[in-house]
């Protein structure tokens, strides 16, 4: 399930880095990336990020898998940039985009969801003065991660049910049952959270 960028167990240096440090690095690189404006700086960043994969015991093929979904957006962006601002600018934009996605994926692949959520909860602690409950933010993030495969599963069921009844690919006939099932799932999940003591 690497397509969803889920955790790959391991004991490398990258795995052992604290989750907070990894997230902070991602934030800094993301913010700093706007300052890069020459192709060799971007190439350097890309090499550094790619170097993190073998360091984490991950193959470059895994790395490639992380950027593959970008092909359409990147292709579109490349065409626009080549037309508007030339080859070099296009290379910089694409390189930065790829580097950031690769870095984000590297963090996700080497960090347990719990550790990541804990780090975010710690980071949100100052927001308490504004009445924000950091634990609640953490829970929302976790449930979001968990619900992706569940909703994908529901979508498959709906599609199968449609095919079984010989219905064509009508977007409405697909969306309505999917939304109804998702809401029903949300109710059941809420009940389970209460049963497991979340509100207590």
């Amino acid at each position, binding site marked *: *399930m690497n397509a969803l960028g*889920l*955790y790959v*167990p391991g004991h490398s240096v990258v795995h052992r880095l604290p989750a907070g440090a990894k997230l902070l690095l991602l934030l800094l690189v993301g913010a700093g990336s706007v300052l890069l404006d020459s192709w060799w700086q971007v190439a350097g960043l890309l090499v550094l990020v790619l170097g993190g994969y073998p360091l984490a015991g991950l193959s470059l093929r895994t790395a490639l898998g992380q950027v593959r979904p970008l092909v359409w957006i990147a292709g579109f962006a490349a065409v626009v940039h080549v037309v508007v601002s030339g080859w070099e600018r296009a290379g910089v934009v694409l390189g930065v985009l790829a580097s950031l996605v690769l870095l984000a994926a590297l963090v996700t692949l080497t960090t*347990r*969801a*719990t550790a990541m959520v804990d780090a975010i909860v710690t980071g949100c602690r100052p927001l308490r003065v504004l009445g924000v409950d950091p634990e609640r933010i953490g829970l929302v993030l*976790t*449930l979001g*991660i*968990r619900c992706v*495969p*569940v909703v994908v*599963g529901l979508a498959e069921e709906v599609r199968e049910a449609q095919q079984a009844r010989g219905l064509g690919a009508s977007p409405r006939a697909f969306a309505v049952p999917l939304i109804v099932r998702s809401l029903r*799932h949300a109710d*059941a*999940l809420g*009940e*389970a*959270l*209460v*049963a*497991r*003591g979340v509100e*207590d």
Partner: protein
Amino acid sequence: MIEVDDVTHVYGEQATARTVLRDVSVRLSEPRVGVIGANGSGKSTFVRLLNGLVLPTAGSVRVDGLSTADDGREVRRRVGFCFTDPDAQIVMPTVAEDVAFGLRRRKLPRPEVDARVADALTAYGLAGHADHPAHLLSGGQKQLLALASVLVTEPDLLVMDEPTTLLDLRNARHIADVVATLPQQVVLVTHHLELLDGFDRVLVFDEARLVCDDSPEAAIGYYRKLMA
């Protein structure tokens, strides 16, 4: 000890009001209690009363002397609840994380949490899946995970709402075998009547009422006649 006194429960209001439980009073102290009945007979609502998921419209429910209305938090600490659909119950993305989730509010030291989680995973045959994404488990493994996540908190009472309805015969049998060895009191709602072999007491619900309260043989016989 579970004490249910004169409980009536109504969903909705006025025009759409629907009474799902009517005048139910029962005391349950036996280690194994089964609950059976037709779809919509009120049995799911009945078991949801036991951990305060549903608060009765009238009457009271007490577990070990604690009222579910006034001491909901303490009751839920003592009562573990296992649902029909494990997908709705598994809240964390990976197996070990989900088992650890129930221990969060205990504020235990990290090594203790890890040890308890590892023990629970071993006990329910999930040790090899600790870091696997929960959604890649089979249906039977998911239900075992849901059960492990509940039992790791060491509840005094385990309530199960049709835990085997979505499972095949082998997995249903396996869940039943696991449940048979548990030290705690178990209240099990099921349509798999053979799971009730060896139970101490079985309640039959029909049209919002508790209509039969007897040994498994007698209660199942009553239920079969009712459905005939």
